[in-house]
């Protein structure tokens, strides 16, 4: 049972100051000419008010778009390795939506599936999440159809729910308690506040969908749906759970470095073999892969969905490849 408090709007700065004093970087939604981005902040008034979601997901905090895994220099007959160790900065994600907060589980499933990825884990350890329940939604949202909810606590160390004059703060984990302890004066006892969040209707039953997909692999709908798809990586790169990456060596005769960068299974070259053969040569196959990866392979392999229903992909898509809509079509196919 999480302990609940009242966090007055005015006390946010106290909390921020305490977190900063503790050497933590605070990342929060910030308005930047019309877009909401997840940027470093120091004061509460920098935080975008009433925003729905950031364009990019918060996964960057644990899985940066470009990250150095190691560097090396070449001497005659010798290779000298450098900085092959992760350097993670203590970070607090403030105002993260419950859907995104729950997304880190899906990343963790991959990064710690067989080998444990020290870089990811180092960043996760240094990461704390202060979530923010949703009081608004848009037509792209479908968290409730994938086991989440506008007030779901999973993934948050502290979950805030807006109430008059401040927030209902549910302190959920040790990390959460540690943060609260940094600024006890900011938190007031809970006068029995009501946790009011937005209504997100359930559109489909994910379990049924997963079962249904087993018979749809060769169905024509994937070709049908993907005709419009441009095959870019926007959906994957804004997705809080997409985890595909590429390893790149930037080297010359004197030395080099190995980088891990985001990649997308939507790209035509993603599965290109050196032989010239491409097992996913059509956009239909790549689109199907995206759906199956999240709603069939994830459940199979990790016992969870690879989608949190945040709708970022739908919002980011230049040609309105609405994920929920297409999932419904599949469920009814």
């Amino acid at each position, binding site marked *: 049972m999480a302990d609940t408090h009242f966090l007055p709007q005015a006390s946010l700065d106290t909390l921020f100051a305490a977190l900063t004093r503790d050497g933590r970087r605070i990342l929060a939604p910030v308005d930047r000419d019309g877009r909401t981005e997840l940027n470093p902040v120091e004061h509460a008034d920098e935080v975008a008010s009433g925003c729905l979601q950031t364009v990019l997901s918060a996964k960057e905090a644990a899985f940066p778009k470009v990250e150095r895994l190691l560097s090396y220099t070449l001497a005659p007959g010798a290779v000298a390795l450098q900085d092959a160790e992760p350097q993670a900065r203590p970070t607090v994600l403030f105002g993260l939506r419950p859907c995104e907060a729950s997304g880190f589980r899906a990343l963790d499933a991959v990064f710690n599936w067989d080998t444990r990825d020290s870089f990811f884990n180092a960043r996760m350890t240094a990461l704390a999440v202060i979530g923010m329940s949703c009081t608004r939604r848009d037509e792209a949202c479908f968290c409730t159809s994938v086991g989440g909810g506008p007030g779901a606590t999973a993934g948050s160390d502290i979950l805030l729910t807006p109430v008059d004059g401040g927030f209902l703060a549910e302190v959920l984990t040790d990390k959460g308690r540690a943060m609260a302890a940094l600024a006890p004066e900011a938190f007031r006892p809970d006068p029995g506040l009501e946790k009011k969040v937005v209504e997100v209707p359930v559109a489909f039953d994910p379990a049924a969908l997963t079962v249904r997909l087993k018979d749809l692999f060769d169905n024509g709908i994937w070709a049908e749906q993907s005709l419009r798809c441009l095959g*870019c990586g926007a959906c994957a790169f804004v997705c809080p759970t997409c985890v595909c990456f590429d390893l790149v060596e930037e080297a010359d005769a004197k030395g080099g470095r190995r980088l891990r960068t985001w990649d997308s299974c939507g790209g035509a070259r993603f599965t290109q073999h050196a032989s010239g053969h491409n097992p996913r040569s059509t956009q239909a196959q790549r689109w199907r892969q995206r759906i199956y990866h999240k709603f069939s392979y994830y459940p199979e392999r990790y016992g969870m969905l690879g989608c949190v229903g945040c709708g970022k992909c739908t919002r980011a898509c230049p040609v309105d490849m609405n994920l929920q809509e297409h999932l419904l079509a599949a469920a009814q196919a």
Partner: protein
Amino acid sequence: MDVIATSRQLLESGAVQAVIGFEAGTRGIPRPAFIRRAEGAGALVFDANCTQNLGTYLTRPEVRTLGRVAVTATPDTLRAILQLMAERQLKEEDVLALAVDATGEALELPTAQAVEEHLAMVAQVLPDRDREALERLGRMTREERWAFWQGEFARCVKCYACRNSCPMCYCGHCTMDCNRPQWVAEPSHALGNLEYHMVRAMHLAGRCVACGACGRACPVGIPVHLLTFHGEESVHRQFGQRAGASSRLDYALSTFRPDDKETFIR
């Protein structure tokens, strides 16, 4: 005749096997639609929000298999069609352009010549806000422009939405995919991003039909279209050519005039 009636007729008569147009989207904005049966034509819409350059689809292998297609086309799309023909990516018989105005009236342009003549009537002007943006950048000092673009590129994640929404980025194997040698740094760090946007702008200079699809497609709102616009304007200013004006190849950078200005050459 309006888009719906024209499309229905074309599909019924078998003149085309598919119509690429717009339908109502799920988020208030129309989206590209592929209509292959006359019954489906009713779903077509056309209004000022139909900004996607449908020319992008014409070179896709999946779309090529549909047969002959009609495309509801803005002037941008028409220019894309001509430029694609000039670059031998499209044959006259592959596509039927339906020039559609904001009222939804559709005009059939069956030949490249018809498209050229239609376009000759339409002045090619940049949207005000883009023109102003270009002018604003022009007024900046070089250092300010550097800071501006570095700030913008910092958000780039190399999702390639700009490239993939561009009708002229049809190369099966993009320079970005070249790794022997690695022409462009693949990661989306500052160098990789600068190189990517520089190469794209150069590769489109003299080929850009100025539809701005790349800029609209960018999920993080980088005005990449200003780069290609500038390149295209630069070509027009210096060589008097415009991409997409003709189905015969007239690429400023694969030709020359002995008397081209060379003020900066020592």
